[in-house]
């Protein structure tokens, strides 16, 4: 019985769970970034020009929304400096990228306002909470349910049957949205389609959340909506107030949107990579002590998002390159994570290498709020995969899995058709 998770079928794939379709819907090219980043690795750490132009690919980020120059930030040290200096490299870009659709969220806010809003939810995404509450209450049950379905047969598309439903189900049910409604809610949230369809979807999501907020305000439950409607936010003068319904709504939209999408793709990248490196998958199966560094390595080697934007707030010089206020900086996580000065043979996937900081989840004040939850979901899911799917291998009846998605945003495999021997729990 499906209680904790959404049971997806091929008909649900569409633009929600197909990285290439998602990219095409957004008008993005889908070329592999690392083929095109190669030529930049030995060059300057910061270069004037849009990253796509330097890579020789179609433009993906709308950097022409701003009148200033565009700079590509490529090296580990330069990307680190930009991420850590939020007064110079701000998130103002999201005023145009996310605010029109989502309103004021952690994405576009900066400074004290950002910190005060982030502090509300920070306790619910810290490692002790993700390893405890999220895992015990939501992740384990969801993983068990999914693997009970998987082990009732000997083949599956793990993209659609594990990677897509797990994070969507966990973050939705953790919020308080029943699993049975999670798919419709996500469709409404992602706002693809005509303006009328998008407005209708947004209205539906708003209605669902408003109803839940009213219920939980009256009778709190053990879920995030209850926590949000009863949480205090500190104000600039040091006093506190409750979040407004609109603020709760925007937070919910952001977390459910982000939490359901990025982990889906990154989990797919992780499984595809391990299947393509069977010796390392075998090593991980034999020694679960390698799990955390394996997840760290795959997120370094192939993060789902290749680049992020920042707005240059004041005249500055970064690695010898002068940038004027009003410029756009394109921080390339992909090249920074493959910096030859930081890693030996960085283009090789190697779970045995010493763990080192990288930028898959960003860095600084805007580092991904949900990163600990994302890693925890992947860890529990991978553990179950290794425990319950014996002799896991690519299904020869299907074409090889292909990495797709937008070149700079939203990389992920198209499908993960596998065969296996079901093993008892």
């Amino acid at each position, binding site marked *: 019985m499906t209680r904790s998770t959404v049971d997806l079928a091929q008909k649900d794939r569409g633009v929600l769970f197909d990285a290439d379709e998602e990219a095409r819907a957004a008008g993005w090219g889908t070329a592999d970034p690392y083929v095109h980043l190669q030529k930049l690795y030995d060059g300057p750490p910061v270069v004037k020009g849009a990253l796509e132009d330097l890579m020789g690919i179609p433009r993906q980020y709308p950097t022409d929304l701003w009148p200033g120059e565009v700079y590509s930030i490529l090296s580990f040290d330069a990307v*680190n400096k930009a*991420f*850590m200096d939020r007064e110079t490299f701000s998130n103002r870009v999201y005023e145009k990228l996310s605010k029109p659709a989502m309103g004021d969220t952690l994405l576009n806010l900066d400074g004290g306002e950002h910190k005060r809003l982030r502090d509300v939810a*920070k*306790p619910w*995404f*810290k*490692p*002790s909470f993700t390893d405890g509450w999220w895992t015990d209450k939501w992740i384990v049950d969801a993983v068990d349910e999914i693997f009970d379905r998987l082990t009732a047969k000997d083949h599956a598309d793990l993209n659609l049957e594990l990677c897509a439903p797990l994070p969507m189900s966990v973050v939705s049910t953790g919020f308080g949205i029943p699993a049975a409604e999670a798919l419709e809610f996500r469709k409404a949230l992602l706002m693809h389609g005509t303006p009328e369809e998008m407005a209708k979807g947004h209205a539906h999501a708003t209605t669902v959340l408003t109803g839940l907020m009213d219920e939980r305000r009256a009778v709190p439950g053990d879920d995030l909506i209850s926590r949000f409607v009863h949480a205090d936010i500190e104000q600039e003068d040091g006093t506190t107030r409750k979040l407004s319904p609109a603020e709760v709504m925007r937070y919910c939209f952001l977390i459910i949107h982000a939490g359901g999408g990025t982990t889906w793709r990154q989990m797919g990248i992780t499984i595809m990579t391990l299947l393509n490196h069977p010796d390392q998958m075998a090593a991980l199966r034999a020694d679960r002590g390698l799990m955390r560094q394996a997840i760290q390595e795959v997120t370094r080697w192939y993060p789902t998002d290749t680049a992020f934007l920042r707005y240059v707030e004041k005249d500055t010089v970064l690695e010898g390159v002068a940038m004027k206020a009003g410029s756009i900086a394109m921080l390339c996580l992909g090249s920074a994570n493959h910096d030859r000065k930081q890693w030996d043979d960085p283009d090789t996937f190697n779970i045995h290498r010493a*763990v080192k*900081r990288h930028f898959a*989840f*960003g*860095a*600084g*004040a805007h*580092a991904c*709020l949900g*990163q*600990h939850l994302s890693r925890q979901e992947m860890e529990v899911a991978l553990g179950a995969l290794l425990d319950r799917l014996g002799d896991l291998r690519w299904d020869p009846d299907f074409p090889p899995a292909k990495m797709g998605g937008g070149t700079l945003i939203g990389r992920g495999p198209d499908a993960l058709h596998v065969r296996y021997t079901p093993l008892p729990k």
Partner: protein
Amino acid sequence: MTDATNPSDQPWRQFACMFCGHVYDEEAGDPDSGIAPGTRWEDIPEDWCCPLCSAEKASFTEV
């Protein structure tokens, strides 16, 4: 600049969070979390978390 005292005269060290890059500077401490300027890394309680991303103390490495 800070009220840190350094009776041992040892250089101040910095430790970076593995997950978000936040740097703990011994000289500056982390007053918002109750860690006074001048608090040596070893003297920070083990349940202290990264003020940016809440990662555990064990997730930090010396810069």
